[in-house]
């Protein structure tokens, strides 16, 4: 996914000569091609992320179109206050591209996990938050981000994410994608959880439930219209995310539902707000928290049977 995103950015950089790419000394081999093609538009600023945000702001204030890259906690958590003022408050067109949403970095451990990023970035005025669900969306997002007005936080996985879309798709920031339309159950999913839920919908069908599956790739600005529409036509609503259950997609959808008079059942599925319980690869950790095709299926069935 990262490779697809930055390959697309490299293509865009050919026409748009003001694109500049910064990294905080991460992305081994990821930028070799970009750097060799545009040596004066690629800067490894060193292991100094706060400075990277300031450099990006200064470049942006001088007419450059800046993309910053690092692993999520270093990119946006260490630097949060620099982002808050230099980018969000000043509303600068800087793109923050974070690698390693959720448990992507698995055995590298808690320091490398992105579990609070969506909550943090969603809280900032002017900030747009987008999480592509597959490499095709990442490519489309690279294109959509170039001329976008204001700062964007882009949460990427790392490598080997499966394709949901075979061909390039129409991708609009702020406009969700309906992947299947049902009537009993509605599932809002984001990023890495979209792909496994396509199979969850099939399992639900076998159990006699028609589920609507919506890819909420843009967390901010949130596609409220689709949430309100779904809430008026479905009695069970679920959110699924590889993120703490507080502050991310579940919270964002809950806020809309609470104000829209929805009186059906609503559950957030994600990672409980604790830490360091398990050690393992990304898939293992996601399995432990039920963030799999079967795990989510089980939680949905439990909830439906409970009511």
């Amino acid at each position, binding site marked *: 996914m990262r490779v697809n995103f930055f390959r697309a950015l490299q293509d865009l950089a050919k026409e748009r000569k003001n694109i*500049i790419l910064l990294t905080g000394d991460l992305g081994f081999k990821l930028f070799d091609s970009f750097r060799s093609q545009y040596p*004066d*538009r690629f*800067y490894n*600023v*060193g292991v*100094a992320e*706060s*400075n990277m*945000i*300031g*450099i*990006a*702001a*200064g*470049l*942006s*204030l*001088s*007419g*450059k179109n800046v993309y910053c890259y690092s692993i999520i906690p270093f990119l946006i958590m260490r630097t949060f*206050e*620099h982002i808050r*003022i*230099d980018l969000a*408050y*000043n509303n600068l067109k800087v793109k923050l591209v974070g690698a390693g949403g959720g448990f992507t970095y698995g055995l590298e451990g808690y320091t490398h996990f992105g579990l609070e990023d969506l909550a943090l970035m969603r809280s900032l005025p002017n900030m747009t938050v987008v999480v592509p669900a597959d490499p095709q969306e990442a490519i489309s997002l690279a294109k959509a981000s170039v001329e976008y007005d204001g700062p964007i936080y882009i949460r990427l996985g790392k490598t080997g994410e499966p394709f949901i879309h075979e061909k390039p798709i129409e991708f609009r920031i702020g406009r969700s994608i309906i992947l299947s339309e049902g009537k009993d159950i509605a599932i809002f999913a984001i990023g890495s959880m979209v792909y496994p839920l396509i199979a969850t919908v099939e399992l639900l069908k076998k159990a006699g439930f028609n589920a609507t599956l919506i890819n909420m790739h843009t967390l901010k600005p949130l596609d409220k219209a689709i949430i309100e529409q779904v809430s008026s036509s479905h009695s069970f609503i679920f959110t699924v995310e590889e993120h703490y259950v507080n502050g991310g997609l579940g919270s964002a959808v809950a806020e809309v539902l609470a104000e829209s008079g929805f009186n059906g059942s609503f559950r957030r599925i994600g990672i409980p707000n604790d830490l360091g319980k398990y050690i393992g690869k990304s898939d293992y950790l996601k399995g432990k928290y039920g963030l799999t095709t079967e795990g989510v299926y089980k939680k949905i069935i439990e909830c439906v049977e409970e009511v």
Partner: protein
Amino acid sequence: MKSGNYSNYKELARSVRLTILRLIHETKSPHIGSSFSIVEILVALYFKILKVSPEDPFNKERDRFILSKGHACPAFYAVLHERGFLTKDELNGFAINEGLLEQHPSLDLKHGIEITSGSLGHGLSIGAGMALAGKLDKANYKVYALLSDGELNEGSTWEAMMFANQHTLNNLIAMVDCNKIQALGHTKDIIDLNPINKKWENFGWHVKQVNGHNFNQIFKAFNTLHRDKPNVIILQTVKGKGVSFMEDNVLWHYRPPDEEEYARAIKELSK
């Protein structure tokens, strides 16, 4: 007042101090000491050094001035007013409801404010980004960033220093207002910065140290900048400079003067 044709910089500095005193007294705002210590450098910048114009504030070739020590903005606003970037009404919109100017500056190019500051440790990084952009665009502008000595406690500033050296940002000029006092005490008792010149030198910068209240020394420093290195001017200053009972006194980092102190300060500055 136009740049370059004002012969009496000292008189201008006195007028700026009176404006700062009035603004702070009327609004009971903090940071009078931090404002008084940077009056001469701001007057020198805005009336001799900087290529900026209130008639053309968006000009891409303009020099950029960054007040990284944003808390000292009463001095900044007073000088922006003298230089024509702020009208009297706009200046009087300092620290009041529905005013224009807060107690820390917000990005506002029309009025000559290049960045939002008030959180320390941001300005030099942003300045380095502007300087890098200037190099990439082969532009002639320079970037001037005024930091406080207490601000050097912030690690991000040292990140920016290393970056500027790595990329030979000789179009970036830092200035450190060494007034030797930070919020809660003397810098030497909190985080001792000395030997400050050596620290910058070891980070690859060309260092000039001057008396920050002496115009001749300030101008000389700007006239002898290194052509191939980032430059820093260490300004040895006195916090609260100009009003005897405020000088070198931690109290005046936050405290606004009461009526009696205000009258005494006006008297001293009017001598």
